[in-house]
């Protein structure tokens, strides 16, 4: 369709100096139909066990509940998972939670179903044909142990988590001025520390000053965190004693999966944190035994 006005020639010549660069199209990765349940995890540091505590916890949970031949993949970025958080479990439609004939024949059925981390226990129950809600003790020896397990979970997820090197206790943090000049490049580890530490860490410039507090500039009391961490490991080792599973349970419980994840992660951390666990022989032996169990449940 002829336009009324044509672009004047000098302008065309000027624009020709800035050509439009066309990049080749990016095709989605070729994916085959999914045949076995696959766990999406953060990349492993060594032989199939993830380097992220959350992913490792769910790996241990799956293995300790007796599942075998679960596949793993670690090429997915966290932004690609449900809720922005790995791990996710990708299951074929035949053994998924939604059992419907119509769905299994619909388009995209070969893609299976993706479950977020909190749906994994339900799926495992469905696969093994067990109903966890029937057991009021949740696998523990007695009601006192069940109550006590809550306390140990709080200890692991609070005190021990705060001391892990992802929280950068043992690595140098960028200085306050660096975080002022380059605000985007500083990692947001302080945010997760603010969620864990009690009382909340105070801002660097203080509450009373006129400098407004920024989320990354907090004053973290490293020595207090390390000292609480030492007490936590000591009491963990004391409580394990020579038992096969924590709190004297006869079968592995979610607390064991959580404890294994943290201890395994600690053993791959800098010395200042690692040495507390390596001093305790029972924890090291327990972790070694559970590691063999967990690794057996997965294939690449």
């Amino acid at each position, binding site marked *: 369709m002829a336009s009324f006005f044509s672009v004047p020639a000098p302008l065309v010549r000027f624009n020709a100096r800035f050509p439009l660069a066309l990049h080749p199209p990016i095709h989605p990765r070729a994916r085959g139909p999914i045949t076995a349940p696959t766990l999406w995890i953060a990349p492993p540091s060594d032989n199939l066990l993830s380097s992220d505590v959350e992913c490792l916890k769910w790996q241990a949970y799956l293995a300790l509940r007796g599942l075998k031949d679960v596949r793993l993949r670690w090429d997915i970025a966290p932004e690609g998972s449900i809720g922005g958080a790995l791990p996710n479990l990708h299951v074929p439609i035949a053994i998924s939670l939604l059992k419907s004939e119509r769905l299994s024949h619909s388009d995209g059925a070969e893609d299976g179903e993706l479950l977020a981390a909190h749906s994994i226990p339900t799926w495992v129950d469905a696969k093994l044909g067990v109903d966890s809600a029937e057991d009021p003790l949740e696998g523990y020896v007695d009601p006192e142990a069940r109550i*006590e397990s809550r306390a140990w979970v709080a200890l692991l997820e609070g005190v021990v988590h705060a001391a892990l090197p992802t929280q950068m206790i043992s690595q140098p943090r960028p200085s306050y001025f660096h975080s002022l000049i380059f605000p985007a490049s500083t990692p947001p580890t302080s945010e997760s520390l603010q969620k864990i530490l009690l009382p909340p860490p105070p801002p660097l410039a203080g509450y*009373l000053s006129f400098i407004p507090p920024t*989320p990354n500039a907090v004053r973290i*009391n490293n020595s207090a965190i390390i000292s609480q961490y030492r007490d936590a490991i000591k009491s963990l080792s004391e409580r394990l004693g020579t038992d096969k599973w924590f709190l004297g349970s006869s079968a592995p419980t979610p607390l064991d999966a959580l404890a294994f994840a943290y201890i395994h992660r600690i053993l791959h951390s800098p010395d200042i944190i690692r040495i507390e666990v390596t001093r305790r022989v029972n924890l090291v032996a327990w972790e070694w035994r559970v590691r063999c169990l967990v690794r057996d449940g997965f294939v690449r």
Partner: protein
Amino acid sequence: MSSSSQTKHPSIILYIWPSQWELPSFDPLCLAAVLYLQLAIPRQFSVIECSSPDGSPTGQLPCLVHEQYAVALYPSIVKYISGLQTADFKTYPRADLDASLSHKEKAQKVAWHAHAESHLGDLVYHYLYSNQENWRKLTGTALASMFPVPQKYYVPQRIRDSYRERLLAAGLWKNFVEETAESPFPRDVKPLETKKELHKNPAISQAFERGKVLQKVQTELDIYQKLLDGKSFIFRNQLSSVDVLVAAHILLLTNPPYPDVLLKNLLVEIYPTLSSHAQSVFNAALGEGKSLSCIPPPSLSLWDVIPSWPKGHASKKQSTDEEIQYRKIRWGFFGLALGSLVTYLSIISPRPSVWQDAEDNNENNNSHTGTEGRAI
């Protein structure tokens, strides 16, 4: 107050948030620290009430200072004070409340510290800081009354924001939905009311939030009720640090006059064992005839607006005569070195030859002109 014969302040000082609502402190960890010290080392410590954590040596409250040691956070304080019993038995005979526990119970104690601090603490912080009604009528005004004029307007909100991340992660932070105020000038013709979305309706959203929070409260308190299980204390019918910590949190859920009385009724009716346990711990620590010795806090001034380096806490030791003499000798040495340097430089430096050259030049010029003048 302390007896007149003892005018020296005790060497153990505890920095805490100020007292409110007839409790020694309105922060659960500070309250627990005060109760523990009162039970373990009565009359051998004193308390400083700081209105903000900037006043404490480590930047966090509660903070214990004993001569040159500064210890922050409740579990570390308990550990330090218990250590005093082994270090100095004569002065602190009953400093370790957990001395009679077995190894297994001591391990459990550490786990219960962590659980009580995080879970019960979240509940207390929710009721103090997140609940909008409580904040506006109770906590906000109490905090604002502690500060002088410039800080009064921005510091309470900052303190409230510091708990936001934690409560958001726990699902206990309520985003306040503004209630649209009725206009004082009623219109004759009201505009057609569109259906308001559910989450923007303030009354319904508040009811949902309250229900959610109460559910959480009941879950947590169930755990502690089962832990207490009808006994008078948690471990072996003897007071321990876990009892003190749990009691401090429960006291802060029952004692303050919250505008929202649902929680107090819940605690009194459904969990009477917990409230009576808390009250008995409080009476044991601060019942009749027992008082805390308080040191008046440093008053805030306008200079606090400027951020300062975190204050050190090392007390200046009295210098001995030998040290004074050494200091004099040291300064004398420096003075001598500097003086001899100045003298040396002044001796070997050349005369101010620049000026002399200029003078010479001037003289030469003058003589030249003079000779020329005379020649002409």
